[in-house]
């Protein structure tokens, strides 16, 4: 993959006076949906502001699709940004909000009008578009912000907490929209606190804590590299007691616990691949295995292992 297809951070640090924003960040973000995950104050918004050129790094360099972030004229042709908080100029209707930003972007009246309606249609706000934003619900505000961020057809879409305040139906529609955009080759970079959704929608995640990137990549890849936390695997079977006894034949298994409902075993192993081979052997020797599923290779668990312990320690 070419560097010009990626958002690249090279040894980037940002300090607000004595306060650390982010420190020594090295990242290459490919197209697709990338989620920034971390607790409040971990540096998610700083990272987003850095990649959209709204703030300059104290050290290091950032290139978005090969464009330096201190070149706004070119950078903002290719990026769209949706802020976390409501940012509406006073008295605007939804239509005016999107249209005015397209005019600032440099579109002439006719093209701006056409692109405005396209974006509004895409987020499903055609009917209330002529109403003032002040009268919009939280979900409508989120959607009109999303419309202004995609209206000029950016290649990199940066969305700070875009799912906040959306009801389940609109949330599903919005996630589907992100997926469509990402499948078309757009970088969709999202920050979110809702971990199960991050898991569901992301192609890759970046975990942040106290201004540092603690993990990045596909969530299962990140999980498999966390050797100090044995992988938890839930095996559903007809004879959990026999299975539990058998799995301890393997040194890498550190714990086996009969499930509360008595119909499975939760196994903790340091070597999942070896364990899966052992399961084949067990299955051939009289234990009927109904299902095997990793129990902690989701964002929630990774977050808990990498960041939760730090949070608890503070």
């Amino acid at each position: 993959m070419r560097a010009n297809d990626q958002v690249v951070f090279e040894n980037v640090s940002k300090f607000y006076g004595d306060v650390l924003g982010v420190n020594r960040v090295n990242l290459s973000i490919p197209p697709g949906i990338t989620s920034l995950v971390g607790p409040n104050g971990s540096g998610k918004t700083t990272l987003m502001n850095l990649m959209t050129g709204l703030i300059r790094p104290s050290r290091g360099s950032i290139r978005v699709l090969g464009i330096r972030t201190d070149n706004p004229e070119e950078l903002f042709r290719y990026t769209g940004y949706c802020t976390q908080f409501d940012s509406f100029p006073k008295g605007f209707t939804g239509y005016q909000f999107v249209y005015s930003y397209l005019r600032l972007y440099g579109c002439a009246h006719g093209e701006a009008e056409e692109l405005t309606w396209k974006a509004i249609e895409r987020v499903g706000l055609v009917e209330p578009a002529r109403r003032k934003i002040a009268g919009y619900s939280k979900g409508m505000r989120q959607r009109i912000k999303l419309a202004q961020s995609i209206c000029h057809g950016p290649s990199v879409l940066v969305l700070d907490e875009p799912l906040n305040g959306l009801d389940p139906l609109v949330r599903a529609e919005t996630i589907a929209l992100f997926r469509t955009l990402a499948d078309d080759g757009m970088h969709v970079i999202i920050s979110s606190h809702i971990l199960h959704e991050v898991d569901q929608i992301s192609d890759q995640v970046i975990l942040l804590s106290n201004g540092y990137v603690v993990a990045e990549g596909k969530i299962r890849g990140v999980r498999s590299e966390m050797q100090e936390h044995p992988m938890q695997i839930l095996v559903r079977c007809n004879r959990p007691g026999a299975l539990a006894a058998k799995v301890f034949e393997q040194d890498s298994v550190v714990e086996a616990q009969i499930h509360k409902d008595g119909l499975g075993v939760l196994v903790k192993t340091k070597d999942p691949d070896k364990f899966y081979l052992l399961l084949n052997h067990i299955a051939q020797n009289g234990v009927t295995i109904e299902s095997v599923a990793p129990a902690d290779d989701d964002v929630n668990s990774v977050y808990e292992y990498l960041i939760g312990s730090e949070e608890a320690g503070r």
Partner: protein
Amino acid sequence: MAVYKRSYRPYTGRLTPAWSRFFVLTRYAMRGMFKSKFLTAIFVLSFFSPLICALLIYLNHNPTILTMMHARHNEVVSVNGEFFLGFLGVQGGIAFFLTAFIGPGTIAPDLANGALPLYFCRPFSQAEYILGKLCSLFYLLSFITWVPALALFAIEANLSGPGWMWEHRSLAIGSILSSGIYILMISLIAMALSAWVKWRIAAGALILAVMFFLSGFGAAINGVLHSNIGFYISPGALITRVCAQLFGTDSPVNIPAGSAWFALLAMCGICLMLLGKKVRPVEVVG
């Protein structure tokens, strides 16, 4: 699933010239201003004085009416530096009042609504933002100050002949320059206060307070120190001195005209610096 195929196509249509984009803000700001009926009423009333002056100039050149009034040419009104200084004094007062009314609404709402990140995630700079907002005030106040002054100049030139126009061209230049620096100063003060004081009413009151306080404080310094140094912090005194130089009249402000210009430009510079500190895409609370 990572994506390596790019079927997505960004906007590649024609763009308006980069230099003209700040007009978008100007246009929206002016539209917002004229939503206020009060402002529209004051704006319309501000044309009362130019109409009276135009009428006086006309009377001054109408032999029939002069005969009826038993007056001679130039006895009704003398169109010279004093005339334009007086005219711009009245119009400047109205302009200042309007600025105190609309100035706080230029930047404070954008800051209060957190709209700046969205402006600056376009190919749009801090300088263009300030210029766009400044132009909205500049256009509005121009129609109250130097534009009617030039209209009066044109009427007088038309009635007196081309010789008068050439001989008195300094009046036209003076009207433009004095109005220009005055508008620039009060607009920047209003915008700077609008950026720092988000509560609109307080910002409006502060604009009035700053102008009167600085004038009063300057006068107090002059009184205590028996010097003219206080004039340098009084925007009113500085404008008076600059206008006197431009229109060739006497001034009660006894400081060199060059230093008055410098002090006014320094005030504008301070306001720009204050604006630069606040008009930022991301507000960092230390």
